[in-house]
């Protein structure tokens, strides 16, 4: 039994849910988290344009006089901790590769901030409703 913890972009959550459903994974938990990686929360304007709406981008320009001319696509802003989603799945050992593939395929954009996937050992599980233990609790 393995615990899969993935940190994902917020706008990729729906795609991820679909991808997991098609490979037959039903038990999924999503958490609202904030986080950052080796880039320390830096986001380029290109990315902002995609994830923020126009109004917010205009506000950003408004708060910093003269920023408009500097806002070309590679300008970076440091936001510190960015909103992310944490995905938690407990799965059988043999399913792990398939789930990791599905998460990677539905989340990969090739830019910084795509997230990480961690696989940890999980010792046991219990279904609260029936008290079933171990592998039976997952099926």
């Amino acid at each position, binding site marked *: 039994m393995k615990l899969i913890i993935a*940190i*994902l972009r917020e706008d990729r959550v729906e795609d991820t849910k679909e991808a997991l459903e098609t490979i037959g994974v039903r038990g999924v938990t999503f958490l609202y988290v904030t*986080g950052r990686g080796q880039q*320390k929360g830096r986001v380029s304007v290109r990315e902002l344009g995609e994830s923020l709406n126009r109004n917010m981008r205009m506000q950003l320009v408004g708060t910093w006089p003269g920023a408009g001319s500097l806002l070309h696509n590679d300008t970076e802003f440091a936001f510190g901790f960015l909103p*992310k989603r944490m995905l938690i799945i407990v799965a059988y050992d043999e399913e792990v590769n398939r789930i990791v593939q599905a*998460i990677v395929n539905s989340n990969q954009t090739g830019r910084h*901030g795509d*997230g*990480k*996937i961690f696989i940890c050992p999980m010792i046991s599980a219990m279904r609260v409703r029936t008290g079933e233990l171990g592998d039976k609790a997952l099926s």
Partner: protein
Amino acid sequence: MIWAIIRPESAQRVIKALDITGIGGITRLHVTGHGKEMGITLGAVHYTEIPKEMLMIVVPDNDVAKTVMIIRTEAKTASKSTPGEGTIGDGKIFVTYVDDAFAIRTAGKACGT
């Protein structure tokens, strides 16, 4: 993998200290909970859900001890009765195994883990 439950007000200090040592990847969760003191009583009201910050950090095995010590020294608040020790509610640090780590961007093994 290090899970640290700390006071919200010391989170910023811990993050800054980790920053200086070059530990970049941190995930932060807002949680509530209580320890073995079962919360706190302020006046007539008893609180069992005390807001805390939970930090999830994955580091190479060699850096675990260093990271735990940094979190410990920064998250500890000064105690009047027992100098050198912290106060009740400073939090806990848990360390568990990670079998595998992947970076989604490159779909490869995350470096250093």
